[in-house]
């Protein structure tokens, strides 16, 4: 998954990957091929869903898919299967100009996979979708990944992408700031466990800052306590009970993709 703010170079990366753009310097390999010299073969084996999928709006969904099928040397039946898989088969005879954003995204996904690409590149596939459509699209992407396809997804809607990514790349100003497995990155960038603690009287929790192993405390509705080890949690609870405090919540925080993203960005900006 490619993460990064607007202008980081996510779309450019997709374009370079298919050979649609030429890099100023550096080398790219996709499926072992150089897109600059073997662009036609790379593009035939890759499917792309651009950020704002465009179609020939005066033509029907079926006509647009038939065109794509010819370009990618696929059968019409494969196009129909793809449309059915993404739930757009019922609208194939309508002109695409009358499609909603969700329908266009589904058609774009069907168009991108009808030739059964080995790599699927999705550039902001849920942008502009309502939550239900976005969830549905993400489920379909997860299903494709489960079938062994490589999926590269650019997004800044991190909460929607939670749990999908098995490899993250943080881009900024066209540079890879960091990359790796989300769990490994979490260990690297957020190594200290955080526990959320709340009580009937928040003031009564002030004693926690004096305890051993407490590295940091911040307030975000409840107290977020950063510890040197998760083993400190029982000690905190015992001490609270001793002091007559009535805790209402003690919950280890599992960092979200968004937490990790902001932590990675913060770390790299501090390093600069």
């Amino acid at each position, binding site marked *: 998954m490619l993460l990064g703010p607007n202008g980081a170079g996510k779309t450019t990366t997709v*374009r370079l990957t*298919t*050979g*649609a*753009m*030429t890099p100023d310097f550096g080398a790219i390999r996709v499926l072992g091929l150089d897109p600059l010299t073997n*662009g*036609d*073969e790379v*593009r*035939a084996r*890759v499917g*792309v869903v*651009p950020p*704002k*999928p*465009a*179609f*020939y*709006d*005066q*033509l029907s969904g079926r*006509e647009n898919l038939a*065109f*794509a099928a*010819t*370009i*990618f*040397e696929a059968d019409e039946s494969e196009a129909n299967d793809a449309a059915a898989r993404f739930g757009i088969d019922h609208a194939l005879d309508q002109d695409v100009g009358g499609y909603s954003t969700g329908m266009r995204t589904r058609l774009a996904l069907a*168009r991108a996979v009808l030739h059964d690409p080995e790599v699927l590149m999705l550039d902001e596939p849920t942008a502009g979708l309502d939550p239900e459509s976005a969830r549905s699209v993400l489920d379909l992407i997860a299903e494709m990944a489960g079938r062994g396809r490589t999926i590269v997804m650019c997004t800044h809607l991190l909460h929607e992408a939670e749990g999908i990514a098995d490899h993250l790349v943080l881009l900024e100003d066209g540079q890879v700031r960091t990359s790796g497995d989300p769990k490994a990155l979490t260990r690297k960038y957020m190594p200290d466990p955080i526990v959320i603690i709340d009580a009937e009287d928040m003031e009564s929790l002030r004693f926690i800052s004096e305890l051993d192993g407490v590295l940091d405390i911040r307030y975000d509705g409840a107290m977020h306590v950063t510890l040197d080890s998760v083993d400190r949690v029982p000690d905190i609870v015992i001490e609270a009970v001793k002091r007559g405090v009535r805790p209402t919540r003690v919950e280890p925080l599992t960092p979200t993709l968004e937490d990790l993203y902001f932590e990675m960005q913060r770390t790299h900006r501090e390093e600069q």
Partner: protein
Amino acid sequence: MRWPMIKAVIRIDLYRLFKTKDYWIPLVILGGIFFVVLPIVLLGSLGLVQQSGAISQIGQIIGTLPEAIQQNIEGDNPATRASYAFAVYLLAPIAIVVPLTISSAVGANSIVGERERGTGEYLAHSPLTVKEIYIAKLIASLIPGYLAGIVGFALYALVVNIIVGPQVGGWFFPTVGWMLLVLWVIPPFIAIALSLILRLSAKVRSAASAHQASSLVTLPVILMSYAVATGLLYSPVISAAAAGFIAWIIAAVLLITGSKSIKRERLLGVSADA
């Protein structure tokens, strides 16, 4: 070169054009005016006004032409000879103006139009080579113009034969010169204009700019082809064949070099130099 893919791009371009009535209806009206309305008005007027100053003036103009050409002008009275001269010689260049204008209008929009619609992004990520896209766009732009030329030519022939035919003793049109013009000379001129217009369409940033810029190409080509067409109709057939051959050579060179002027980045809507 993968022709099924090229044909798919051509088919979708033509189908899209066919479904965009706002685009082709003005072009049909343009063809109708040049091939049908104008000849009916002019030739009909000449037929009605058998004796007038205008007829004698046209007679004087015909009298200045070389003897060989004068002998080709049929009719046994000044009005008939004037009608024949109008039908065969003076209105000839319209056969070039209309198809060139139509092809230019379609061609100017072809590549920059993909970029404006966003469909260029899809083509850029597709396995189509730039050469295949260029050839498809060229043919898709050529077909409407040439089709308009052929259909218009047939209508013009019908109008001319109906109005002037009875005066000269039957159907006389098209002449060999006209056939050569339509089938051999016009196509390379359209190709020359289109090869230049597609380069422009790939360079400019909007369809509006492409249309403006294309007039810079279309007008000189129209003027040149107008002059060539007019001259060829007065010349021996061999001259027309030779002129067509030279035009085909120029067109071939421009077409071959044309595909190299288009960069894949241009379909994405970003500068190829960026």
